[in-house]
Structures are given as structure tokens and as C-alpha cells.
């Protein structure tokens, strides 16, 4: 509801506002929904003036339709695919993270979510020379690990430092701070962060469930409301600024023992692509392997349930031939 206010649009002066209030019209919605002719009589203003006001207010607050053709043109020029640097994951993601979309990684503790996020951040900043915003809500990010990954990519210290400079980190631990940060990014923070080096092409939230999950459940719907806020601002940011959003989520176990991503059904509609990470169970020996499996569980481009295995050591080991060229998506691939 947008409240009617003096000076909101020309012609909406104090007198008119008062008589509108007397007629129980307080918001733009009320004004727009009411019958202008009847209202004009009630408030003793000219129909013409009232209609003009209605029209201007409507134009101010509505969303404008865009032709699909224009939208497509715009999309073609703005969409980029950011490789994660890991061939197995890129294969699942149809060659990488798409800008304008939300991609989700879910998995249990120690399933390698953060490692994948680190790897993607390093790859985007080093190979693609673009800035990355890393929102750390679990305190899991260590710059030394990022440096370790970078060292396997290049031995040039200057390049390493440059790449580190392009990764902007913010650490926050509750949902309001996350919302503050995301709205701040939409309201100019993204442009600011892109000063010096490439523009921001990816925003990573590790993890989104850590701040949302404590609010869910119980009788109140406020947690759900905040969750939709987070989803909304992430989607808007991804689309409007054409950045790729990568979020992580925990998993829950259903009654039958199946693993499924957390945050419930309402969240499940939010990410465009979802990947489930799991440890590869080796023989029941004590030795733990760094092998992980990634399963595509939601995608609009690839068949679901395809599975790839990869090694977490990929990023720290000798990862030579990863070509990190920025690919523009081709029409109707």
C-alpha cells in the first residue's frame, strides 16, 4: 500500500488530500481502485483533475510491460556464463554459473559447499578478472585458503594479490544484516565494489540457510516473510545487475532417510539450478577421501539427476588446463 501524500504528484494538494481521506481514500491503491466519477462528486473536484492524478499515480507505481523481443535482446547482450573452474561442475551447470540466476549448492556438513564457493570465487576473480562479492554467514571463509587456491593457479604474486583484491568479503550473522547488505548492494554497493578491476559478476552467499533456518518453524510467519524477502532481493539483484548468485543450503533428512535441501518447499522454487553435494562413501575404512559427488536436482537446461564426481583437491592441486574464457550464451542453445 502506498500512502497518498501531498506533492506526490502535481494537483494532489492538501485540500484534495483531506477530502479524499474523508472519502476513505488513503492509499494509491484505494484511489486507483475507486470509481473516479463517483469520487469526483464526493470530493467535489473535477473529474478531469482526478483522472489525471489517477493516471500519473498509476504511471509512477506500476511496473511497465516490456516486449519479449526486447527482453531477449537485452538478455543476450547481458548474460554471461561464469565457469566455476571445475570441469565436472561446469558440465552439470551447462558450462557454468549463469548471470541473472540463482544457483544453489546444498549438502551436509563437510560436503564441500564452501570449497566449491571458494573455488568459484577464485576462478572468477583470477581467470575472468571480474569482481566477486562473498557474503560469509558461517565464519568459514579464510583468506589463506583462497591464497592457497590461487597459488596453484599462478606463481605471480602480483596476480595473486590482484585476484584477492577483487574478492570483496562481508561477514554477517543474522538475516537483517543480510538484508541490509543485499539492499545496500542493489542501491549502489555493486557499482562501488566494482571500482578497480572488473565489474561485479558474482555474489556468493555462504550460507543462506544459516541465517534463515533459525527463524523458520513455529507458528509465526515472520520467518517465512523474511525468507521471501531474501529470495526477492537476490532475484532482483541477479536480474537487474546481471550477476550470478551462488547460495549454499544445508540438507535435511526426510522420514525415509532421503537427503533433500533445507529451508522447505517455499524456498525450493527460488533457485533456478540446484546441486546436491555429497561425500563419496569409500570402503568403511577410517581414511576419508576428498572425493565428492555432485547431483543436479533442479535445472531448466539439463536433464535432472545427472551425477558427477569431483575431487576437492582440484582447486589446490595442479589444475592446469582449465580454460576460463568468458562465454556469451548463444541464442537458443
Amino acid at each position, binding site marked *: *500500500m*502506498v500512502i497518498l501524500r501531498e506533492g506526490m*504528484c*502535481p*494537483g494532489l494538494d492538501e485540500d484534495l488530500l483531506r477530502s479524499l481521506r474523508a472519502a476513505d481514500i488513503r492509499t*494509491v*491503491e484505494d484511489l*486507483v*481502485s475507486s470509481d473516479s*466519477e463517483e469520487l469526483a462528486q464526493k470530493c467535489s473536484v473535477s*473529474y*478531469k*483533475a482526478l*483522472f*489525471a492524478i489517477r*493516471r*500519473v499515480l*498509476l*504511471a*509512477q*507505481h*506500476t*511496473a*511497465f*510491460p*516490456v*516486449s*519479449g*523481443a*526486447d*527482453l*531477449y535482446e537485452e*538478455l543476450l547482450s547481458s548474460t554471461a556464463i561464469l565457469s566455476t573452474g571445475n570441469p565436472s561442475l561446469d558440465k552439470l551447470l551447462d558450462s557454468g554459473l549463469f548471470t541473472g540466476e540463482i544457483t544453489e549448492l546444498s549438502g551436509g556438513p563437510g560436503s564441500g559447499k564452501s570449497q566449491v564457493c571458494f573455488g568459484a570465487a577464485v576462478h572468477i576473480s583470477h581467470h575472468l578478472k571480474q569482481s566477486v562479492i562473498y557474503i560469509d554467514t558461517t565464519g568459514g571463509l579464510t583468506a589463506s585458503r583462497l591464497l592457497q587456491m590461487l597459488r596453484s593457479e599462478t606463481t605471480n604474486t602480483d596476480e595473486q594479490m590482484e585476484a584477492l583484491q577483487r574478492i570483496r568479503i562481508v561477514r554477517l550473522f543474522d538475516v537483517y544484516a543480510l538484508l541490509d547488505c543485499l539492499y545496500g548492494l542493489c542501491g549502489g554497493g555493486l557499482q562501488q565494489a566494482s571500482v578497480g578491476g572488473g565489474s561485479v559478476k558474482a555474489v556468493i552467499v555462504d550460507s543462506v540457510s544459516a541465517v534463515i533456518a533459525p527463524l523458520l518453524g513455529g507458528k509465526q*510467519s515472520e520467518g*517465512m*516473510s*523474511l*525468507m*521471501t*524477502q531474501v529470495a*526477492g532481493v537476490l*532475484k*532482483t539483484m*541477479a*536480474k537487474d545487475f546481471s550477476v550470478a548468485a551462488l547460495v549454499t543450503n544445508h540438507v535435511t533428512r526426510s522420514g525415509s532417510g532421503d537427503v533433500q535441501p533445507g529451508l*522447505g*518447499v*517455499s524456498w*525450493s*522454487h527460488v533457485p*533456478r539450478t540446484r546441486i546436491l553435494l555429497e561425500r563419496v562413501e569409500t570402503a568403511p575404512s577410517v581414511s576419508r577421501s576428498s572425493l565428492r559427488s555432485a547431483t543436479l*536436482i*533442479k535445472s*531448466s537446461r539439463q*536433464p*535432472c539427476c*545427472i551425477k558427477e564426481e569431483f575431487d576437492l583437491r582440484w582447486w589446490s592441486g595442479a589444475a592446469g588446463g582449465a580454460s576460463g574464457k568468458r562465454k556469451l550464451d548463444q*541464442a*537458443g*542453445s
Partner: protein
Amino acid sequence: MFQIVCLISKTVWIHFVPIPDRTEPDKRPGTALLRAAGTGSESDRARRAAEEEEEDEARVEMSESGTQLFARLEARRCLKDIEPRLFPDDGGPDHGEVVEVYGPEGTGKTELLYHLLSRCVLPEAAGGLEVDVVFVDTDYSLDMLRLVSILDTRLNKGRTTLKGLSTSPSSAGSDEAALHLCLSRLLVVHCSSSSQLLLTLHFLETTLSSRSSLALLLIDSMSAFYWSDRGEGGASISKQEEKLSKSSELLGRLLRDYRITIFATCHAIRRSNSGPSSSETDRPFLCRPWQRLVTHRLLCSRQEADPDQAGSDRGDGEQRRRRVFRVHCTSSSLSSTGTKGSRTSSFRVTDGGVEFI
């Protein structure tokens, strides 16, 4: 800016007609008003929309004649045959009817929507209906790339069958042009709150009145603002539902006045605890005014993969085909004397979109 000025002053004029004190049609205050508004925060997006509208506006005459009224009401194409395999026999959505597509994540809702959307915007030669569609995107869910890939596949298929040749040497230029034509039949509007949705629907009325080729309004999704409305509404249910019911009432009026058809998705918000088709999860949860509008309900679910088929599954391409989705349609159509019909159909998703089986 100038265009907006003309446009709005003209509108003021147009609606001036039925007012009795028409003796002094002073356009000046309106114009001044608009100049001021024009200098406001509207971007070129707004201008583009305004331009478009101006064009439309030109077609609307100052007063509506009987024939024009007739044109407004009758020229819209009926979408009864939009997808015969989905609806009960002879029970497709008629003028002024609402189809709700309901289901949890990953049950093919979006694919189904794209299927219907592409059927509408494709040229008749490619098996389409050639009608205009407004896509109200409340979830930021429209995946243009996917839609284009579906359209592309179908356009190509249409062309090859037409010429009877699999390798017809059609130039890339004409491909692009055909695609562009299809996409220009689609209008997309993003809404980010339920009050913006309401205002946008009001705004769309002008678009509807001027484009007689516009026959379908797609809303994806109707449930997008459910939780935020609940959070904002406080304890009272009627406050929580206020905005959505207002939108529904407005939609009801648009349906009556402009005889369009509406397809809307509704996300499931509860996880099914007892099997895939328990009544608890499928119960509608949106406000009553919306429920009253709905005449057809498509319930989407996932069919568990057939183990035999899974066994014979080969490469990646096959895997996509394997997953089968099921749609259960119940309709209580108003036009066909209030009879209830139902039908269950299955489809799978291929690169070219939905394929019924």
C-alpha cells in the same frame, strides 16, 4: 518526455467525453501536470511503454461505437483449443475463464506454462495460435533462454514439415525474424510486491483495451507474495489477504470486460507428508475471491520413473526423456452448463518442451 505529455493529455481528453460539463475542454492543466510528471523519475523503459501505449491509444476512438464494442469483445481469440490433450473433452478454457496450475517444485509447472505460452505466440504455420500474451512475472521466474529454445525447436519443426524436407536451406535471417515476431507477441511485466501487482493490473487495462489480439494473461506465480502479505497483515486474516483479494476482484472484472483467459501458477507451500497426492498438501490456500475465479485446476505431480524404462536408459539425452510428469485437470466450466470434468494426462520434457504421451 514530450510523448508522455501528448499521450496523457490525449487520454485526459478521451475520458473527458462522457462527462457532462464538457463545455470547457481546457487541456492546459492536464498538460502542465504531465510536464511536471514527465520530469520525474521515469526511465526510458517507461517511455518505451508509453510510446507503445500511445500507438494503442490512437486506435481507441473517443467514444466507442457498437461495432467497436463488438470488436473489443469478439475479436479476442478463444483459447478453448489451446491444448486439447490437457483438458477434458470440449472443456478447454473459454473466454473469461481461469486456469490454475498447481504443484510443488520440480513437477513441470514451468515447462507446462512455456508449452502453452509458445503455443499462443507461435505462428499458425508452426501450429500456434498467433495471439498476444502478457506474462506477469512475480517470481522473476521467466527463463527467456529456455523459452527461446522451445520456440526455436518448434519453429524449425514447423518449417521442415511444411517443406517436407529435413534440410531446408532457410537462412538464419528469416529464423531470427520469425523468432522475433513470436517474441514480440509476448509482453513481460515484473512485479515485486502485491500492491505493485494490483496497480500493474490496473495499468494493464489500457493495454487490454487497445490490443484486441491479446487473449491470454499468464501470472507466474499467484502465490509469490503469500508470505510477505501474511507478515505484513498482522494477526487479521482479512488484512493478510486484502491485497490479493483486491487483485482477484480486479482480475474478475478484466475477465468479464475483456473476455481474456488467465493461466496462473500457484506454488505448493507445504511438503507432502503422506504420499504424493495427499489432500492436505493440495488444498488451495490463496484467498477465497481467487478460488472463486478458478474454473480449471491443473494439478502437477511427478510420476515415479518406471523401473523397466530406467533399466533401458542410455545416454544423457535419454535420461531427460525418462522423467514423466502427470497433470490432473479438474474443470468446472461455466460455459458448458456448470458440468465438472476431469482428465489426467502425462508428458515428458524434451529439448523442444513438453511432449504429451
